[in-house]
């Protein structure tokens, strides 16, 4: 009965995921295309940075997603850890590589932006360093899952790592306020409202919507894959046990 209960939710989830997947993917492609059109062709150059400001439209959403994915991962880990919900564990596990990808993209595009604007590909200021730490947290989390064959035990330990690492997220957000840094302070989420002109904010928000829905569109199939893989492993286990029993008889 217990096993059935555990399975029931993932099955329902899979049906639901398959249903909304095309809509999510379509939304991602649509907002992405519109966002890129505005970002590259139909938005003004910056008064200081000129055309180089267009790097913002790929950099800022990636940086946001790197922190958002980590928050999702930590939240799902906590749910999985406390309520022993396997679907939450799987969601956390499958978010990690996506978050790591967004982090790499943020670091890479930031570097490309930093060279012409600041005059350096990389500096060890608080913002850049804390985002690099975020990447290492993702990689450590993924490595931990792979290092432990027992899924339940791996989920427990990985959850603790994700929760511990979550303290880095506010550090990233406020690094530009707590310490002198080369990186600029926040432009959108700030007490006195955005400091980005409307003509630039529109493509940026479109791109953020595109990144966000692309994340969901990539997450849903990978959760389904993992659930299928686990079911397969369980079936193989049952098969082997039965074979062993037959041999004994």
């Amino acid at each position: 009965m217990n096993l059935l209960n555990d399975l029931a939710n993932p099955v329902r989830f899979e049906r639901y995921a398959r249903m909304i997947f095309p809509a999510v993917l379509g939304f991602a492609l649509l907002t992405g295309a519109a966002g890129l059109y505005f970002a590259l062709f139909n938005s003004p150059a910056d008064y200081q940075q000129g055309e180089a400001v267009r790097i913002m439209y790929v950099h800022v959403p990636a940086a946001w997603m790197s922190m958002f994915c980590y928050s999702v991962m930590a939240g799902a880990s906590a749910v999985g850890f406390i309520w022993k919900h396997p679907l939450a564990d799987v969601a956390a596990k499958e978010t990690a590589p996506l978050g790591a990808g967004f982090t790499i993209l943020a670091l890479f595009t930031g570097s490309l932006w930093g060279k012409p604007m600041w005059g350096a590909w990389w500096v060890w200021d608080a913002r850049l360093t804390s985002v690099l730490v975020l990447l290492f947290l993702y990689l450590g989390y993924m490595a931990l899952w792979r290092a432990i064959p027992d899924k339940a035990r791996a989920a427990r330990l990985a959850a603790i790592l994700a929760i511990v690492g979550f303290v880095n997220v506010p550090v990233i957000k406020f690094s530009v306020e707590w310490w002198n840094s080369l990186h600029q302070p926040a432009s959108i989420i700030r007490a006195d409202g955005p400091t980005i002109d409307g003509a630039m904010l529109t493509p940026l928000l479109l791109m953020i919507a595109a990144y966000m829905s692309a994340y969901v569109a990539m997450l849903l199939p990978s959760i389904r894959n993992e659930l299928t893989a686990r079911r397969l492993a369980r079936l193989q286990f049952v098969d082997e046990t039965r074979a062993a029993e037959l041999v004994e008889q």
Partner: protein
Amino acid sequence: MTRKQKRTFLLFAVFIAAGLALGLTLTALRTSITYFYTPSELLVLDAPPANTIRLGGLVEDGSLVHGEMSGVDVKNAVVSFTVTDGGATTAVRYAGLLPDLFREGQGVIVQGRLDERGTLIADTVLAKHDENYMPKEVMDALKEQGLWQDGEEVGS
């Protein structure tokens, strides 16, 4: 305590312990995490630091002097300027390429050593940009209406 409560408690304890540890570490390391000194902070120090430091502030208006350029050796053109934070200033000398955003009134971070007269001999100049993004026309309009002063929007 039920098992679920125990797990919840454990997770909170772990998170708070990690937060405390990180908070204490960052407080202890405050001076080394700070990416640069400002000219005022430099004045307060008892002895000028002997090793490489970073200094941040605005390039003072009218302070930029392009030195002698030998032939076409643009890469080693010497420039001197002063960096100000509104309170104090520090003189800087630098030989090399300046970033695109470098100009008078712009935020910069320079890295180098102080010489015996308190001039910073820089080996790296980085330009800092702020959080404001807008098209040039909007900027011009704001300036025209007197709504923009010293890199800050008036009344926002």
